[in-house]
C-alpha cells in the first residue's frame, strides 16, 4: 500500500479494501517509526489527522470508477503539507524560530483546495527556513536526512516533502519552488515534482519568500500522481492578484498520448561544464530512451542562462527583504525576551528569530534596493530577467519541451556546501531560469549516479505547458521503473 499510486489508493478506498482512517493510520505509524531518523516532519497531530480521515470516509465514492484518470477521486487519500502553507489549527513555522509557535487562523488556498477534494493532512513538513536553501540545512528544526543515504542532504527547500515521499511516509506532498525548491529535492530524492506556470496555483496563504518567483506545486512518486494533484491545486483565486483566470483544465488529459514527433530542446548551456559525469550519463540515457519513444531532440540555446543565478540572487533577496519585514515581533511570532527601546526590540527579535541564511538574504536584499544601488542591481536584474524569458521563447520556436539535468550533482553530504553560499546557490543553476521566466518545470527520476543516489531529469515547458510536460514524463515512466524504486532499508 505504501508504494501505491494515487489511482490505486483511490480504487482501494472505493472498493472498501481500506478505509481512510486505516490508510491515514498506516502512514502515521510509519511516520512515528521512521521520522525520528529522517526529521522530515516538523508537526504531526494524530488527532487532527484522524478527525480529517473520519470526515473524509463519507466522501469516498463507492465502487469502481470508470471515468478518466484526471477525475480520480482523491477523497480519503492522505498527503502532507510543506510548512510554508498556512493550515488552520496547525502550527505553521516556515522552518523558522520566528514562527516556532505560530498557529495559523486560516488555511492557504492550496490547503483549502486539497481539503475540498477530501484529502487528509498527515502533518507539516520540514523545510529550509523561509524556503531559503538548497539542502534543508537552514531549518530551525534541524536538517532533513535523505532517505537514500542519511549522511546526505535531501535538497531544498522542500526537502521535508521529498524525504517524506521517498521514505513512503506520505503518498504525496505539497511543495513550493522559488528557484528550484520542488525540482531539486525531487531530483535528489528520486521523486517527481512539478512547479507550475507562475499564476496557475494561488499564493494565498503560502508564506512569501520572493513573490514574483514563488509557486506551489505537487510532489509525488509519478507524473500521473502530480497531474491528479495539480488538478486539485490549480485554479483562479481572487485573493491573489497574480493568480491567472483561465478555464480549468485536466492536466492528466494527454498522459496516454504517445510522444511521436515530440521535439525536445536541449540547451547547449545545460550540457556544458559544471555537470557531474554521473548526472550527465543518466540524463543522456534518458534522452536516448525518449528518442526510442518517438521524440526527436534538437539543440537550442539559452544564451543568458549564465546570468540567471546572479539575477536571481538580486531579485529574490530584494523581495524577501521586504516580505520578511512583517516578522517584527509586534503582532505575532518571536519576540526577544529582553530589549530596550523599540528599535532594540526589532533588532533583537529579528537577530534571534531568523537564522544566518535568512539574515544574509535580508541584508543582500536591503543592499540592492538601497538608494544609489537600485538601478545598478535591481533594475539591471529585472532587465536580465526579461532577456532570459525572451531566450526561452526563442528556444520554444524550435521545440515543444526543453530537457536537461535538474541538478548538477546528486545529493551531497551534509556540510559539503554550507560553508560556501555561492557553491550552494550554484546547485540551483539549472532550475532558477524557469522561475525568472515564469515557466513550468518538473523533475523526474532518470537513474542513479554516484553512491547510488538518484538523478533527476528536468523538463521545462512553455507557459501553461503542464499537460505536455506531464505527458512526456508519464510516457517515460511507463517505459522505466526509476520512479517506483525506494530505499531498500526502508521497505
Amino acid at each position, binding site marked *: 500500500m505504501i508504494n501505491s499510486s494515487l489511482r490505486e489508493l483511490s480504487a482501494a478506498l472505493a472498493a472498501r479494501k481500506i478505509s481512510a482512517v486505516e490508510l491515514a493510520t498506516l502512514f502515521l505509524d510509519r511516520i512515528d517509526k521512521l521520522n525520528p531518523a529522517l526529521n522530515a516532519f516538523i508537526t504531526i497531530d494524530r488527532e487532527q489527522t484522524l478527525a480529517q480521515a473520519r470526515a473524509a470516509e463519507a466522501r469516498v465514492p463507492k465502487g469502481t470508477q470508470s471515468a478518466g484518470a484526471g477525475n480520480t477521486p482523491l477523497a480519503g487519500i492522505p498527503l502532507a503539507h510543506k510548512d510554508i*502553507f*498556512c493550515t488552520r489549527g496547525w502550527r*505553521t513555522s*516556515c522552518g523558522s524560530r520566528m*514562527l516556532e509557535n*505560530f498557529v*495559523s*487562523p*486560516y488555511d*492557504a488556498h492550496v490547503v483549502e483546495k486539497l481539503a475540498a477534494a477530501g484529502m487528509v493532512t498527515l502533518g507539516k513538513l520540514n523545510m529550509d527556513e523561509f524556503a531559503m536553501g538548497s539542502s534543508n540545512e537552514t531549518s530551525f528544526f534541524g536538517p532533513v536526512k535523505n532517505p537514500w543515504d542519511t549522511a546526505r542532504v535531501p535538497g531544498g527547500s522542500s526537502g521535508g516533502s521529498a524525504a517524506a515521499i521517498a521514505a513512503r511516509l506520505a503518498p504525496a506532498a505539497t511543495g513550493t519552488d522559488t528557484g528550484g525548491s520542488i525540482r531539486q529535492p525531487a531530483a535528489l530524492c528520486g521523486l517527481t515534482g512539478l512547479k507550475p506556470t507562475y499564476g496557475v496555483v494561488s*499564493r*494565498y*496563504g*503560502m*508564506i*512569501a519568500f*520572493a*513573490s*514574483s518567483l514563488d509557486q506551489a506545486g505537487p510532489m509525488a512518486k509519478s507524473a500521473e500522481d502530480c497531474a491528479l494533484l495539480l488538478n486539485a491545486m490549480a485554479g483562479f483565486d*481572487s*485573493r*491573489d*492578484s*497574480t493568480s491567472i483566470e483561465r478555464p480549468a483544465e485536466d492536466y492528466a488529459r494527454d498522459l496516454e498520448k504517445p510522444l511521436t514527433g515530440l521535439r525536445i530542446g536541449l540547451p547547449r548551456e545545460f550540457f556544458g561544464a559544471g555537470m557531474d559525469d554521473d548526472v550527465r550519463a543518466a540524463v543522456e540515457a534518458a534522452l536516448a530512451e525518449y528518442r526510442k519513444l518517438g521524440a526527436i531532440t534538437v539543440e537550442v540555446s539559452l544564451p543568458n542562462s549564465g546570468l540567471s543565478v546572479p539575477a536571481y540572487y538580486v531579485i529574490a533577496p*530584494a*523581495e524577501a*527583504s*521586504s516580505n*520578511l*519585514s*512583517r*516578522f*517584527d515581533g*509586534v*503582532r*505575532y511570532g518571536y519576540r526577544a525576551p529582553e530589549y530596550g527601546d*523599540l528599535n532594540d526590540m*526589532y533588532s533583537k527579535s529579528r537577530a534571534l528569530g531568523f537564522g544566518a541564511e535568512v539574515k544574509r538574504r535580508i541584508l543582500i536584499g*536591503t543592499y540592492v*534596493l*538601497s*538608494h544609489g544601488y*537600485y538601478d545598478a542591481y*535591481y533594475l539591471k536584474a529585472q532587465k536580465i530577467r526579461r532577456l532570459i524569458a525572451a531566450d526561452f521563447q526563442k528556444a520554444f520556436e524550435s521545440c515543444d519541451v526543453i530537457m536537461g539535468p535538474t541538478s548538477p550533482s546528486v545529493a551531497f553530504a551534509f556540510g559539503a556546501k554550507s560553508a560556501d553560499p555561492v557553491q550552494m546557490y550554484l546547485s540551483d543553476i539549472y532550475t532558477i531560469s524557469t522561475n525568472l521566466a515564469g515557466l513550468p518545470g518538473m523533475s523526474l527520476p532518470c537513474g542513479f549516479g554516484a553512491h547510488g543516489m538518484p538523478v533527476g531529469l528536468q523538463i521545462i515547458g512553455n507557459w501553461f505547458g503542464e499537460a505536455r510536460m506531464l505527458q512526456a514524463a508519464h510516457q517515460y515512466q511507463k517505459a522505466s521503473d526509476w520512479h517506483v524504486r525506494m530505499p531498500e532499508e526502508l521497505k
Partner: protein
Amino acid sequence: MSQWEVVIGLETHAQLQTKSKIFSGSSIAFGAEPNVQANAVDIALPGVLPVLNREAVVCAIKFGLAVGASIAPRSVFARKNYFYPDLPKGYQISQFEIPVVQGGGLAIRVGEQEKFIRLTRAHLEEDAGKSLHEDFHGRTGIDLNRAGTPLLEIVTEPDMRSSAEAVAYARALHALVQWIGICDGNMQEGSFRCDANVSVRRPGEPLGTRREIKNLNSFRFMQQAIDFEVQWQINEISEGRAIRQATVLFDPDSGETRAMRSKEDAHDYRYFPDPDLLPLEIGADWIAQVKAGLPELPQAMQARFQADYGLSAYDAAILTASRAMADYFVTAVAAAGAANAKAVANWIMGELAARLNKNDMDVANSPISAAQLAGLVQRIADNTISNNIAKKVFEALWNGEGQSADEIIDQQGLKQITDSGAIEKIIDEVLAANQKSVGEFRAGKDKAFNALVGQAMKATKGKANPQQVNDLLRKKLGG
C-alpha cells in the same frame, strides 16, 4: 517682508470614501473599537496578499478628471519599506515612480486675485494604523482599524506664495474632493490632512531649503503654522544660520513649529514595485465611464451661473463653495424660475447664510428647504408680499410655522394690500391724524414725507405695497 519671497507646496492626504479598504475587504468606518476592522490582510499575517479595491481607483480617476490631469494608462504600486509598529507589513503600499494622476491644477482666489496652482501628481496609497500612547501605562497600544484605509495623496508644485494662498488652495481642494464625492472632508477625524513644504528666499534667488510641516488638520492651524515657520526661517537666515531640511510639527498650544527629525536620519525607503500587485491599467473606456458619472464641476457651474443668471463671479463662487450649496441653489432656481435666480441667490447668500451661520448649521440641513425659499421669492416677485413682510415669512418658515410661504401668508394674513382705494382711504386717515407732519413737509422738510409713509405702513401692519403708498401720498400732498 517684501524683501522675502515665501514658497509653499502642499501635500494632502485625502481619505477616500470607499466601503472597504484599499487592499482588503475590511470596513473603513470611523470610530469602531480598536482592531475590530482589521482582518488577516490588515494585520499582515504570514501568507496574506493585497487585492486592489477598484472603487479607490474610480476615486482617483474622478479626481484626475476634476483637476484636468492626465490619468496614467499604466501606473505601478510600490513598496515603501520602513519599520513602525502601526505599519503591519513593514512596508506601505504606495505609488512612487508612476502615479495614477499626473499634472492638472486648481484655480484659487485670494481676495480679488485669481491664481492657478499646478499639481505635480496624485497617487493611491494605504494608510497606516494608529499608535496609542495613552492608557497603556508607559506601553504603546496599536489600533489597526485605520491600516489599509485608501488615501489619495495630492501633491502641488511649489506655487503658493503666502499662507493665505496655501489656505485658499487647501480650502478649494477640500471643497472639490467633497464635491466629487471621493472624500468626506472631515478634518477632525483625519479624513483630510495636509503637509506644507515651506521655504523662503530673496526674490530672484534659487529656492531655499524647505522644511515640511506635518499633519495640519485645520485651516486655521495651517495659516498659523506657516506664518510662524516663515518668520522663523527669515530670522534664522537673517541671523546667518542656514536652514536645514527637516520635518517639523506644529504645536497649536504654543503656536510654534518644532523639528521632529532632520534629513540626516531620514529613511531610505527602498521603494520597489510591489510584486504582489499587477500594474494598474486604466483604459479610455474606464475613464469615459467614470467621466459620465461625474457631477458638473464647480468651475463649469460658476460660468453657467454667470452666463445664464447674470450673477457676478463672486456670487457664483459663493454659490458653488460646496456641492450642498450648489444643489440648494439649483433646486431653488428650478422651482422659482430662472427669472428669479438673482433674487434666490441674494436670499441664500443674505438671510439664509446669516441664519445658518448664526446657528452653526450647514445648508445641507437647512430648516428652510430650497422649494420653500423658492416659494417665498416667487411671492415677492409677484407682489404678493413686500421684502419686509418676506422677512417675517422667512422667520416663520425657519420656525416651522407653516409648510410653505403661501400657507404662512394666508394663515397670518400677510398678503400685500394693492387695492388703491383701500390704500387711499388709509392715507387720508393718516394725513388727517398727522397734520403737523403735513405742515412740515409743505414747509420743505423731506423727512416728514418718510414719517407719513411710515405711519401709513404701520396702519396696514406693513402690508401695503410700499411703492403704491409712496405714489399716492405724493399725489395727495400735491408733490
